[in-house]
């Protein structure tokens, strides 16, 4: 038994040297920790599906630590953004994702980096999981030249490879996502597109237009409704005649998933991805989740819901707490190791915030650039006839 544990711990130690893994190498011997465990997860409500995702999920220690780190990074990043906004260093729109982290992390764990993803404006979490660094995300929020969009996009317009934003117009991202899926199918790549929208957007006409075409043409598209119970200040009961968002795709099979549990989300995403990759066409997932903050920084978030409700979700269903408890109670890690991760996360966030506040704003010469791709330089009219501004691709 001892020998097997040593072998396993050696393998784990070797695997942590890979670039992708962000597991803390603790000085303590790995032989003390359980390498993996199986967890019972909530079943999904099904629509037009004979069977759903497995009700058990296997989590390895390595995965658990990676999810924990990313969840914590996302949480701290959003809280730091809250702070910077209140200090007026971030301005304009800022829609925070804290509470919903399990969705972004779980989805990313269920797809490949070569798959595609598009979401609406509550996008900071996805920008992170899709390859953005905290530094460039925060610098974009503060509008500096080191921002992921060079300061020209802001909170709602962040892009990375295979991540199409960050979209400000409610619902518009859904046809776009189906279009990306069409491009995947057309080019014969075994890739799919995850297309996210909220419970508020779910009533948009263009989404139903998209369901229709995605189904007709069997596009490899996973539609995901992040149902956080409120579209701005309007609860789902007041906005939708049917709040069974997973059924709203009608002819599209759907499943309703506990969006606060990262393992539930991961298993459901894998299930949905298999469905798409088998050429069966689109599938719809409703993730039941919750946002701790208001709709945006200008919304205190307590005029349409009670503080008690928010507190209850925090204490009973917080995604980070849930993962932490699971790992601790199965001896997959200990408090010290998690604390070390917390310290590292905090440091990375502080460094990023420092960068985001000290990096200079974009130079004025950049003002008119990036109007057109691969084009000759052109002249742009300024605020009066005597300004001659230059634009390059």
């Amino acid at each position, binding site marked *: 038994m001892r020998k097997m544990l040593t072998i396993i711990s050696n393998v784990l130690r070797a695997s942590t040297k890979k670039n992708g893994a962000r597991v803390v190498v603790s000085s303590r011997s790995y032989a003390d920790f359980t390498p993996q465990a199986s967890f019972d997860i909530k079943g999904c409500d099904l629509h037009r599906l004979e069977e759903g995702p497995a009700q058990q999920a296997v989590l390895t220690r390595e995965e658990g630590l990676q999810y924990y780190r990313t969840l914590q990074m996302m949480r701290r990043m959003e809280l730091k953004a809250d702070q910077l906004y209140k200090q007026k260093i971030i301005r304009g729109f800022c829609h925070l994702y804290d509470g919903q982290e399990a969705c972004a992390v779980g989805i990313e764990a269920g797809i490949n980096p070569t798959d*595609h993803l*598009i979401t609406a404006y509550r996008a900071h979490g996805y920008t992170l999981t899709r390859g953005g660094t905290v530094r460039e995300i925060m610098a974009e929020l503060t509008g500096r030249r080191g921002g992921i*969009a*060079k*300061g*020209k*996009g802001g909170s709602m*317009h962040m*892009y*990375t490879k295979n991540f*199409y*934003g960050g*979209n*400000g*117009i409610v619902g*518009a991202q*859904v*046809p*776009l*996502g*189906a*279009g*990306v*899926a*069409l*491009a*995947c199918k*057309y*080019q014969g790549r075994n890739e799919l*597109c995850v297309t996210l929208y909220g419970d508020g957007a779910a009533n948009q*006409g*263009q989404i139903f*237009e*998209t369901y*229709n*075409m995605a189904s*007709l*043409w069997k596009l490899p598209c996973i539609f995901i409704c992040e149902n956080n119970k409120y579209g701005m200040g309007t609860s789902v009961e007041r906005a939708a005649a049917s709040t069974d968002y997973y059924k709203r795709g009608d002819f599209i099979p759907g499943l309703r998933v506990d969006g606060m549990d990262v393992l539930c989300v991961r298993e459901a995403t894998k299930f949905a991805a298999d469905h798409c990759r088998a050429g069966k066409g689109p599938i719809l997932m409703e993730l039941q989740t919750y946002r701790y903050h208001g709709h945006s920084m200008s919304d205190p978030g307590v005029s349409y819901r009670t503080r008690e409700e928010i507190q209850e979700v925090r204490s009973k269903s917080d995604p980070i707490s849930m993962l932490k408890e699971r790992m601790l109670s199965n001896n997959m890690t200990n408090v010290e190791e998690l604390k070390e991760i917390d310290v590292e996360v905090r440091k990375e966030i502080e460094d990023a915030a420092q960068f985001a506040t000290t990096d200079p704003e974009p130079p004025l010469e950049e003002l008119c*650039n*990036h*109007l*057109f*791709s*691969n*084009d000759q330089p*052109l002249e*742009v009219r300024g605020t009066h*006839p005597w300004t001659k501004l230059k634009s390059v*691709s």
Partner: protein
Amino acid sequence: MASLKCLLRSGRNAVSVVLRREFHRTLPASLQVTVRDALNQAMDEELERDERVFLLGEEVAQYDGAYKVSRGLWKKYGDKRIIDTPITEMGFAGIAVGAAMGGLRPICEFMTFNFSMQAIDQVINSAAKTYYMSAGLQQVPIVFRGPNGASAGVAAQHSQCFAAWYAHCPGLKVVSPWNSEDAKGLLKAAVRDDNPVVFLENELMYGVPFEMSEEAQSKDFLIPIGKAKIERQGDRVTLVSHSRLVSHCLDAAAVLSKDGIECEVINLRTIRPMDMETIEKSVIKTNHLITVEGGWPQFGVGAEISARIMEGPAFNYLDAPVARVTGVDIPMPYAKILEDHSIPQVKDIIFTVKKTLNI
């Protein structure tokens, strides 16, 4: 035979254009090609040249196109490249933009640009602004094309000109061809452009044949977006127009020539970015400027040209204010006599020239 029917349908102006063309010195291997066929050729050639190019829209595939512009393409390229969509503009325009983001080069057809209003958010917010918002990370190589402006007897909801609306927005290129060479060269250039291009055709021009030079028949014939063309040299007054009304300007010029007034007729070809240099050079020569468009006057193409002339070097050469000839500022009526009086006629252009020249 079909082209003759089209000729008669498009009215007297088209016939005079054809007659004038036939009496020109013809190049050895030039031939008569309708605007419709030129557009068809352009799409066929670009589909053949680049695997990533595809066409989607209502009735583009099995119906051969609502106005037969995509005739034969579905038979040749099949379901993958020529896609019939349901009647859901906002949805399919969004899908087209997403496909462009995902690496393809879609041609998105609006049956008429009136229906593009349902999808205008996707054209402006998802297509036009994305390259800028992403600071160059995400390009959107898409062409939105279809008939624009007044047709014949289709009334108010089907006759609006969108040149001014789309040309207002940074991040878009807006192109408005007049004849067959324009149609072919500009559509090919639009498809090869890595940016969103709004391509405004004209239903009444589809059936009109024009001489297509040997150069224009080549598979690599491109017309640069952003350059206007001087269709007729003159020295008394400059007429600037786009799309179908270029024909009206040429007809007016022919009539005025008999009175010894030589008009310089400029075919804009591209509305955005507009070729002010060509217009200014011409105004410096002729000292008089008249803009001619089918769209409504307020905040229109002519309004923009007038403002820019005042801001540029040509202002000091004007001997009279710029005059705009436009559509009447009303929704398009149905009855023929009313419709005829809602859009500029050749006599309106002649009248305006004489007023401007104080004759």
